[in-house]
Structure formats: C-alpha cells, structure tokens
C-alpha cells in the first residue's frame, strides 16, 4: 500500500529505546563509583536473561524474532530491574525476576506496547514480597571490593553485617517506627553512616546523574516535562508540608527526591510510555498520584521504598485517567463554541 504520507522521519522504536539506555549511562557510572562494579554484573545478568526470555517468547508466539529482539525494549526493562535491585542481590534473584518481567508482565499481556504494568516494577514488587530480606540487603558504603561482592552474588555466601546495610530510606523508616527509640529525623540522619549531605551517601550523586540523563531525554523529546515535573514537585510539596509541620517525624523534600528510586522513577520509570498516561493532563495526574503514593508508602508503609508499588497502582488507573483527560481538539475548545452563534 502506497498511502500517504510518503515521507517519514528516520525514527524507530529501537532508536527511542537506545536513547533511554544511553541516558541511563551517567547514572550507572556514578553508581559504579560509589558502590563498585557489581551493578555492571547485575546489568549483564538481567540483560542476558531478558534477551533470552524475549527470544524464546517471540518464537513461541510466532513473531519476527530478529525485529523485536533488537528493539531494545527488553534491555530497558532489564536495566531498570538491575538498577532498582540491590547490586549484591543473588544472581538467581535477578535472573528470575527478569524472566518474570519479560514472560509474565510483558508477553502474557501481548508483548511490546500491550503491557498495562511496567514490567520492571512488577518484577520489583514480586521480588520484595517474596524475598524481603534479600531485596533490602544493600552493600555498605565502602564495600566496593569486586571479588567480595561477587562472592555474595554468586556463591550465595550469606552477606555479613559488615558488608551490608539498610538503604537510607529503610534505615530512616525502621528507626522512626520504633517508638521507644524516640528517634528524630535529624538525629537519625546525623548518626547514620549511610546518609550523605542531602540524601543517602552516594545516592544523592547517582540521583543527580539520573537527572542529567533525564534532562537529555527531555531535550531529545523522548519524554515530555509533565511526568518528571509533576512527580518531583508533588513529592517535594507533600514532603515539604509534612516535614515543616512535624520535622521530627517526616523527612524533608530534598531527602525524598534524591533518595531511593525517586529520580530514576521520575525520568525513567514513570515515563515508560506503554504503561503510563498519554494525555498532558493525564500525565500530570498520573505522576502526581505516583508521588503521593510513594510518599505515603515511604512514610507509613511496611516497605522501604514505595516507588514500585506506587507505579503499579497508578498503571492501574491509566485507562481511567486517559479517558477522562482527553484534551479538546482543534476548533472544539470552549471559547470557540460560543463564537459562531453570536
């Protein structure tokens, strides 16, 4: 069929996905700097598992394997899984979670473009529910020795207290939840080795690197400003409001934004086009909702970071959000409707 248009921009799904991967590189580099090279191994594990699962499923479903395998979407999922999981998680956890993401969360829903939930976040939530201990085992600051890390990852050598510690969010949450400790946010942040200048030690820099990558995606028009802006502003406002009211019980906005998955989520996870809202107003609502849920789960929930659950919950609302936020089309805006009749 030779229907119009006959001209096309030289763009492809592959190009979009590889730009997303490229934008993650600065964040990964800083990650390695602070927490060692284990994350690279995790990324490799997840990538291999994702590509294998993708190839197998594409063959099973009778889809063109080469075309879809190289579209880069499985790699994006894999990298996001690796980046949200602890870098010293046992190899089988990363692999199983990735397989689950590709097989169940992506292909059982119809593959590329059809999945209502972000596959990486499905993998995260399933893993943290099934293996809460392993999913909260983060390398201690300074535990960057590669061979020691690999021992934990591959030999299932149970991680020692010396090499692991809770993430800043986790530390804050557990200590605030113990009433007799009479801990205050300021006290905890000052006392704990995992806290840096404004957020978690190292994490604040990783967050800044994600921000840089995200801004580049914005400049490349791969994403729009709506989701990151709405997410970060909402998170800052809620966190700011509560920490002003009760500074001892609630961490401040900057801490929330540069810690945990917030920055990664704002620019790389919530912006997943397939499982996110598509209308401008819809994107604002979607991201603001995710921010609210993240803050609630972080502050009152049983899990250290609420980002993943918040994303899935908002994914659930997307059809409803999109349906109710359809922007007016050309010539059908309110002020126009009056005109011809006057």
């Amino acid at each position, binding site marked *: 069929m030779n229907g*119009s248009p006959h001209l*096309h921009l030289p763009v492809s*799904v592959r190009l979009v996905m590889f730009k997303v991967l490229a934008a993650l590189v600065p964040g990964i580099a800083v990650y390695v700097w602070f927490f060692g090279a284990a994350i690279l191994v995790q990324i490799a594990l997840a990538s291999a598992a994702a590509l294998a699962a993708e190839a197998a499923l594409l063959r099973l479903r009778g889809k063109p394997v080469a075309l879809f395998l190289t579209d880069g979407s499985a790699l994006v999922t894999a990298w996001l899984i690796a980046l949200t999981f602890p870098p010293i998680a046992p190899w089988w956890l990363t692999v199983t979670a990735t397989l689950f993401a590709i097989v169940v969360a992506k292909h059982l829903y119809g593959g590329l*473009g059809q999945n209502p939930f972000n596959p990486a976040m499905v993998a995260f939530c399933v893993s943290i529910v099934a293996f809460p201990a392993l999913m909260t085992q983060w390398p201690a600051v300074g535990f960057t020795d590669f061979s020691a890390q690999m021992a934990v990852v591959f030999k299932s050598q149970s991680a020692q207290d010396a090499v692991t510690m809770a993430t800043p969010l986790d530390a804050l949450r557990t200590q605030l939840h113990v009433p007799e400790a009479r801990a205050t946010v300021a006290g905890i942040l000052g006392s704990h080795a995992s806290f840096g200048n404004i957020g978690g030690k190292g994490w604040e820099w990783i967050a800044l690197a994600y921000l840089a990558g995200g801004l580049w995606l914005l400049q490349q028009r791969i994403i729009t400003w709506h989701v990151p802006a709405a997410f970060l502003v909402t998170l800052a406002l809620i966190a700011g409001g509560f920490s002003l009211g009760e500074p001892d019980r609630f961490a401040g906005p900057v801490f929330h934004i540069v810690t945990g998955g917030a920055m990664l989520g704002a620019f790389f996870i919530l912006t997943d086009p397939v499982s996110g809202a*598509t209308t401008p107003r819809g994107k604002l609502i979607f991201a603001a909702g995710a921010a609210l849920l993240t803050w609630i789960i972080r502050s009152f929930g049983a899990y250290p970071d609420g980002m993943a659950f918040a994303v899935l919950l908002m994914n659930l609302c997307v059809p409803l959000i999109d349906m109710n936020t359809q922007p007016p089309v050309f010539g059908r805006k309110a002020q126009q409707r009056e005109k*011809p009749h006057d």
Partner: protein
Amino acid sequence: MLATLFKFRGGIKPDAHKDESTRTPIAAAPLPARLVVPLRQNAGSAPLALVGPGQKVLKGERIGAPEGNFSAAVHAPTSGTVLAVEPRMLPHPSALSAPCVVIESDGEERWIERTPVDYAAESPDALRDRLRDAGIVGLGGATFPSHIKLQPGAAGRIGTLVINGAECEPWITCDDMLMRERAAGIVRGIGILRHIVSAERVLVGIEDNKPQAIAALRAAAAQAHGIEVVPVPTRYPAGGEKQLIRVLTGIEIPYGRLGTEFGVQCFNVGTAYATHRAIELGEPLVSRIVTLAGNVARPGNWEVPIGTPIDALLELAAPQAGTDRYIMGGPMMGFTLPRTDLPVTKAANCILAASPALFPPQGPEMPCIRCGACTHACPAELQPHELYWFARAKNFGKAQEYHIFDCIECGCCAYVCPSNIRLVDYYRFAKTSMRALEREKAAADAARERFEFRNVRSEREAKEKAERLAAKTAAARQAMAGGGQPAGTTPSVPAAPTTTAEAAAPLPQLDEAKRALIAAAIERARAQKEAVQPKNIDNLAPEKRAEIREIEARRAQVRELAKTPPEEPV
C-alpha cells in the same frame, strides 16, 4: 496594520526541497495531440456533457455544464474535434473511471470569443455565476467550486479574506513560481474576490521560506490598498486551510463548519489568479501550473493544458533511473498514481517522480508504544494513537467519539511515528467504513420504515376486513333474528324450523370470519416477506440493476467528496 500571528499546535518540519524546481521560470507545456478532459473536476456534482463525438470545439468552449449549483463548468483546453465522450480512468488513488471528453487538437489554439468584464460594475451574484461558468475551482488540490465559497454564510458577511500562498508541502512550488512571476494577476484576482464578498481585510499568508514570492506579492499589493502580505513560519501544514486561517486570524474552524460561518474565507493564490483571468480576460480555466520534481533531470514548473496526458508531461522533466512510481500531489498528502497515461486535472498541482532513494520504504510496522510523538505532531489536536487503536479494532463508535472525522489526513502523525505505523491508512479505512455503514444504515432505516408502513397497512386492512365481516355476520344474525321474531309472532309459522335455522345459520358465517382472519395473516406474511427480501427480487430486474449502478456511482462520488474536503491543503 501589522497582522498578529497566532500559532497552530503540532506540525512538522520536513526538508522543503523547493530549490530544485524554482531555478527556471514557468514554461508552457507543448500542446498534446490528444487531450482527455474529465467532466467532473470539482468537488460536488459532475457537470453534464454538452458535446458529442465529431463535434468541433474552440479553445475555452464549454464542454460540460455545471449540474446544479454545487458544480462548475468544464471547457475545451484547446481547439479541435471531440473524438469521444466516454469513461476513462482518472488520476485517483483508487483508479476511478468517470466520463471524459476526448479532444483531438487541431493545433490552432483558436479561442472562443472572450468577453472580459469590469468587475466593479458587476453584481456579486453575476460574478459568482461567471466564476461557476468559467470553471473556477480551488487550485490548491481540493477543487472546491469557488463561487460556493463566496456565498455569504449564515453569519452574514465575510469580513476577512485569507489568501493561501503558504504552499507547505515539500517539493511543490507551483504557487511559489506563480507568485514570483504573476503577482499582479494574483492581486487583481484578490481584488475581484474581495469585491464579491465585500471583505474589509485581506491577509495573504506565505511561508517565510519563499522570500522572492513575498517580495513580489508585496510589490504588487502596494498599489492595491488593504492587502497585507504576511510571512508565516514554515511548518507543515501551515498551508492547510484551517491552519492558515488560525495562524492569520486566530479563528479555529471545527470540522463540518464553513469558514463563512465565522466571517472568514480562504482561497489559494492560484485560484485568485484564475479568477482574474476568468473575469478580466474572459478566459475560463483551461490550464494550470504543475510542478514536476523528484527524481527527474529537469525539475521545474509548467503551464499545462488541462487534459494533457501525464506521461507526455513527464517527458519534459526527464525522469531518471531508479524512479519506481509517481506521486500526484506532495509527499505528505499525495497519492501514488495507478498509471501515468492519465490526464492532468485542475487538482494536479505536482507530479513527483519517486525513487527508493528519495522516499525510502518504511521499516516493518511495530506495535504502538504510546510514545505520544503523533499527538505532539497532530495539527488537529487529536490523539492519533487512540484513533489508531479504535480504527484497528473497528471500534468505530469510539473512533467517532475521539473525533476521527476532524482528522485532515495531513500525515504528520505517520511521519513521526517510531513504530512505522501507517496511521493515515487506518484512518482512511475507518472513515470509509463508517461512511459505508452510515449509508447502509440509512438504507436499512428506509427499508424498515417501508416494511413497518406496509405492516401497519396490511394489519389495518385485515382488521377492517375482519370488522366488515363481523359486522356482516352480526347484521345477518340480526336480520335472521329479526326475521324469526315476526315469524314467531305469526302463529301460522311453526316454531320448529326457526330453531333449526337459528342453530345452523351462524356456523358457516363463523367459518367465513375465521377464513378472513387467516387470509389477513397470510397477506401479512406475504407483505413481510416482500419487504424483507426486496433486494433479491429487485436485483433480477434490469431497471433495478441500473438503479443500483447509479447508487454505486453516487457512493463513489461521495467517497470522492470525502477525499477532497472543502479545504485546500497545499
């Protein structure tokens, strides 16, 4: 007064490729030995043929009379002899055939007597009639009859006239060259159009990538007061009628409404120029400027007699090796010509020689990833990916709810889609299907109404019949009873026979009532059957078949109309 510019949302910036075909001036294309002039070259109804085989015609002689008001005349592009009036294939995406007048030229180019008029002395009505009879239609590609667009709408006067010189489609330069070379004629034509609607304001929108055209038109407009030449930002589809009106006036005209209702109307510069020729020179529309570009050795613009075979024209431009097809119109909204031995029509603004190098084939279609690039590019501010989803699922109700008919098929969405989805094809499919369904529904409604009417009638008739019978029976019974009474009172008649008569008489009459009811039921069933299967029976009758053919033709026409909305996207 300097016009404030407004913005339209969306749009794209493809490479313009305007330089290649603007290096040489407009040249006159040689007169071909044979011309094929389609009778219908306007949106609206097809003109009626005024000539027959063997008849001699002069250049500019009317060969097709407008059929009704929503139509425009057609003229002989040169002098010669009519060879035939017969259906020929048209340059149309679905290779439609329609009646054409085939003329063998005598090479003498003898004009019919031309009667120029002073427009200022003419009434608007008389000028509108002249335009219709001179075959003036929108030359931007939509071929909407211009006199219709010049009729004052419900809102009253057309205060603002927008003249479209944007020419936003890549490669096409016929308007650009016309503005550079014949600005004076365009300005005179604008004067006539303005006079007809007595507009206060004229805004000529030209994309700012055509500095020569802007300068030429500004110079020409300097003498005529009240014509503003406004450079508009180069962004496809700035030359879409609605987009240009929006940019120049801020008014957004929704789908299904006419500019007239908003006090604004838009004409292409080529149309303005043709108006000048028709009124002030008395020359009907028998030629147009056509851009030949793409994979050709000699790109340029030619003034081409309507009806010239496209392949003869292409020889002038010398298509190069690698050309695999020809596109009529631009690369964004044009269509691939089914063949090249088809005539140039009033809609033919450009013929592009396409090659895989110039227009690389798209990669395989991937699933939509909802990236929103299409939404961002859509000048109609639609959600193309949602429309795609609904069109694909044949969920036409939803597609309509999401305003699929507001889509102007500009192709911006498909241009930017990373998944290579042929979005516009899906919309065209959905729109065509919906229009077909609509017509079927209308036909079914009419049939049902007929059926219900017949049902009601036959029921009523049966009821009346039954009532009549019942009345008869009652009357008979009464008569009998009445007959018996006197008989009873007459002592001379024995009582016994009366009772037997009374007992026996009602029986056959009851039967008859029952029989009538059965007959009514049978009649009803027959009527029902007749109404339910009229097609199968009708199809056999030859005159009905002709009727169906006619309906088909009308459908084709409606499709055609749907293809050419009353806009002039350039």
